[in-house]
C-alpha cells in the first residue's frame, strides 16, 4: 500500500488526538498512528519531534521524563486543558472541511 502524504497542518491534529487517549512518548505516538490508520499513514519520523516541540511551546501538550514499559528513561507527553480545547476545535474544523469538500465533489 502506498503511503499517503500528510496534508499540511494535520500532523498536529493527529498528535493531539493520539495523546487525548493517554500520555505517551514520541515513539509510541508514531507507532499508534501507524497502527490505527491501518498502516496507511506513515509519518516521517523525523518531523514528529519538531512538531512535538512546537506543540509543547504553544502550551497544548506538556512533557515529563518518566520510565517506559521496559524501564528505560523516556520523555512522555500529555495533553493539557488548552490542548484538549484545541483538539476539539481542530477536529471540528476538520470534520466541516471534509464534509464541504465531499459535497463539492458530489456535485457533478
Amino acid at each position, binding site marked *: 500500500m502506498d503511503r499517503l502524504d500528510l496534508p499540511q497542518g494535520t500532523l498536529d491534529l493527529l498528535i493531539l488526538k493520539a495523546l487525548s487517549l493517554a500520555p505517551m*512518548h*514520541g*515513539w509510541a505516538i*508514531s507507532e499508534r498512528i501507524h497502527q490505527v490508520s491501518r498502516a496507511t499513514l506513515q509519518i*516521517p*519520523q*523525523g*518531523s514528529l*519531534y*519538531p*512538531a512535538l*516541540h*512546537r506543540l*509543547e*511551546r*504553544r*502550551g497544548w501538550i506538556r512533557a515529563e*521524563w518518566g520510565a*517506559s514499559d521496559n524501564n*528505560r*528513561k*523516556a*520523555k512522555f507527553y500529555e495533553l493539557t486543558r*488548552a490542548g484538549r480545547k484545541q483538539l476539539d476545535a481542530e477536529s471540528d474544523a476538520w470534520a466541516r472541511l471534509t464534509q464541504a469538500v465531499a459535497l463539492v465533489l458530489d456535485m457533478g
Partner: protein
Amino acid sequence: MFEELWSDLRYRVRSLMRRDGVERELADELRFHLERETEKYERQGLSRPEAERRARLAFGGVERAKEASRDGRGTALLESIWQDLRYAWRGLRSKPAFTAGVVLTLGLGIGANAAMFGIVDRLLFRPPAYLRDASGTHRVYLSWTESGGESRTERNIEFARYLDFKRLTHAFSSIAAFQTRSLAVGEATDARERPVTVASASYFDVFGARPVLGRFFTADDDSVPVGKPVAVLGYTYWQTEFGGRSDVLGKTIRVDRGLLTIIGVAPDGFTGMTDQGIPALYMPITAYAWGMRARDYSKNYNWSWLEIVVRRKPGVSLTVANADLNSAYRQSTIAEWELARRKVDLAARRPSASLGPVQLGRGPEAGQDAKVVVWVGGVALIVLLVACANVANLLLSRAVKRRREIALRLALGVSRARLVRQLLTESLVLAAIGGVFGLATAQWGGAALRVLFLPNQPAAAVVTDARTLAVALIATLGAAVLTGIVPALIGSRSDLARSLTGASRDSGAARSRARTALLVFQAALSVVLLVGAGLFVRSLQNVRAMRLGYDVGPVSIVSMNLRGTKLSPSEATLLGNRLVDAARAIPGVSLVSPVASVPFWSNEGRSLYVQGIDSIQKLGRFVLQAGNADYFRAAGTRILRGRAFEPSDGRDAPRVVVVGDGMAKLLWPGQDPIGKCVRISADTAPCTTVVGVAEEMRMRSLTDLREHTYYLPLTQYDDAPSALLLRVTGDAADFSGTIRRALQPLMPGSAYVNVQPLRELVDPSMRGWQFGATMFLAFGALALALAAVGLYSVIAYGVAQRQKELGVRIALGASRGSVVRLVVRGGVRMVVFGIGIGTVVALWAGHWVEALLFDESPRDPLVYASVAGVLVIVAIVATALPAFGASRVDPNTALRAE
C-alpha cells in the same frame, strides 16, 4: 490566545537558559526512539546491525531532525546571536591592544558628541523645568525704529507696558513679568550677593510647579504699586542655608533694602527661566519695584528693566497671538506718547512685538555663544566620523588577516549573510564598550565644559539624562554600523580558492580602494577641522591683541551698594571722598579715580550737539566717561593728542572734554579736533572745548565699531560717580580681599562694597572665541592624530603586502632610499588628494562661520597653507616609518615570503 503567547514566551526563555540541558534531552529522546525502532526490526527477525540500519533509514536524518527541533523551539535566532556575541568577545579578548585602541578611539568620539549634545540641548532645546506647555510659552521681544533710523530689538520692557499688555490682550492665559537681579541677601556680615528672581504672581502660573512648603505669591501679594514683602525660597538655598527645615515659614530675611517674610519653598529643580543663575529666592515684582523707587512706576515708560513671558490660550495659534500682542503694543505706544504729550508717529516708529521661543539661545538675541556651541557640536560629529573611518580601516585590515578563517567558514556552508552579521556583531561589541567609555568621558569632560559654558544652570549627571543617553546610544549604533559595514561586506567576499591556497599576491582591489577612500576621507575631514581651528585661533589672537582702550589686568572696580541707607548729597560726596582717600592708602594700589561708566557693566550718556552735524545719534553710540586727574593713568587709556585733565579743570572752570579718536574722526573728519566746540545735554548749553584726543573704550561689545567714548573731568560731571576704578601693582584679583577689608568699615549701616577685578567683567565677552578656539584646536588635533594613526596602519599594511615586489626591486639594484621614496610618495599622494578635497569643503563652509570670527577672513591663505603643510609633514612621517622598515628587509626573505 494570550495564554498561548505567554506559554510560548516561557518556553522560549526556558530553552534559552537551559540550552545545554535541552540539547542533551533532545539527543536522549531521539536515541530512545531509534532504540525502540531497532528493537521492532529485531523482533521481526533482522540482525542487530541490519535492524539499526533500517531504523535509521525509517527515521530519516537524525541531525536534520535535531535541527528542525531546534527551529521548533523558536530560539534559533537568539541563540545564533548569542553565539556571535561570544565569538566576537573571544576574538576581541585575544587581541587586547587592538581592542583597547579601538575602544579608546570610539570612546573619545562618542563621548565628545554626548558632551556637546548635552550643552547644545540645554542652550537650544531644553525648556526650563516644570514648564507647563513649552510650545505654547513664549518670551516677548519688542522692536522699534529709533529716531536715527536703526531698528532695535529688546527683551527688557517697562512695567507700564506690562500692565498695558495685561489690559489689552486677549490671546493669553497668563502674562508674567520677571527679572533676575543680583541682590544682597542676608544681614550685615552674612550679606552675600545672590541671584534673586523678582516676578509677578502670574509667573508661577506659567509653570506647573507646586511649592514643597507653604505657597507661592497670589495676586494679593503682587498688587500695584506696593507689593507685599514676602519671599519664596529656592530649593537649593533652602537646603543649604536653612538646612531644609520646615519651620522656615514665617521667618524674615533681609533682601536688598527690605525685610521679607518667607511664605513658601519652591520644588527641587525649579529655577524659573534659567538664564541668569539659580535663584536663591523669589519675591513679588511690585515689592521690589517699590523698594527701588518709592514712586508710582505704573505709568513710567522710561524704566525698562523686566522681561515678559506669556502663555497662549489653548487653541490660539501663534499668528493670532502675535497679531494680538502687536496691536496691544501699538495701542500702548500711543498711550505712552499721549502721556508724554508727544506727537504720535507710528509709521516712523514702527513698533512691533514678537513672540520668541522660551530658550534664549533660539531667540533674536541668541548671542554668539549659542552659535559657537552649535558649530562645535558639528565638529564633535566630524571627529566621530574620523574615528569611525579609522576603526573601519583597522577592522578591514583585521578582516583581511583573517581571510583564511573566513574562507573556511564560507566553505563549510555558513551563509554570507550570517558571516556579515557575525562581523557586524564584532563592531557592535566594540562600539558598545566604546560607548560606555564615552559616557564616562562625557560625564567628566562635560562637567568641565558646563562650568565654562553654562555656569548659570544646575549641574546634571550625564548618565541620568535620558536625551544625552539616547544620543550616546545613537552615536554608538551609528559607529557600529559605519565601522563594521565596509569590512563586513568586503571581508566576507569569497575569493575562495585563492585564499585557501594561500596565493601570495592579494589583489584585493576592492579592499585597497575602500582603504584609500577612507584615508582620503579622514585627511579631508582633518583639513576642515584644522582650518576651523586655525581661523578661531587667529580670531582669538586678534581679540586678545586688540586695544580695548584700557588695561584689564591691574584694574579693579569698586562699587557701593547702599541697601536703602539714605544719604544726603553732601553725605554722599563726603563718603565718596573718604573712600577715595582710603583706597589710595591701601598698599599696592597706585591710582584711584571715581568713574561714571564701567566697561561691560554700566554706561552713561548725554545728548551731544556739534555745529554742522544734524543728528549725532544717527552716527553711533556715544558713551560718557568721567574721571579725576588720575583717570587716564589709572585706566591705562592713552592720550593721543593734546592733554588729559588737570587740576585747573575745576567745577567753575571752562568746560573741557577729551574725545575718543574714533569720535574725533567721525565728527571732524580731516580736521584738528583740538579747540572744537561740543554742547552737552542741550543745544543751548555753553561750549565744552575739546582739549585732547584719547583712545576709545570698548564698553558694551568688542566688535561694535559704532561705539565711541568721550571723557569729562569729574568736577564738571553733573551726576554722582557710579564706581571707583583702582589701579594696583600686579593682578587685580590678588587684591580683592585687601580692598574689601580696607573699605568696608567706612560704609554706613548695612551698606557694603562690591569689589570686582575688571577682568571678570571683560572676559565673558571673549568667551565665545576662546571656546571656539580651544574646542576646534582640541578636536582638530584629535582628528589629526587619528588620521595619522590611520595613515600609518594603512601604509604599514600595504608595505607588508608588497614585500615581494619591494624585495624584487632591491634585488634588482634599487637603492634603499628610492624604495622609501616610492612608498612615501604613494602615501603622500593620497593625503594630498584628501587635502584638496578638504580645502574645497572648508572654503565652501567658510562663509557660514564668518560671523563668528573676529577680524579674520574665512579664506585666510596663511591658515590654509599652514594646515596643508602640517598635514603633509605628518603624512611624510607616518609613511616614512613603515617605509624604512620595508627598505631594511632582506630581499631573499622577501622573495620567499608568502
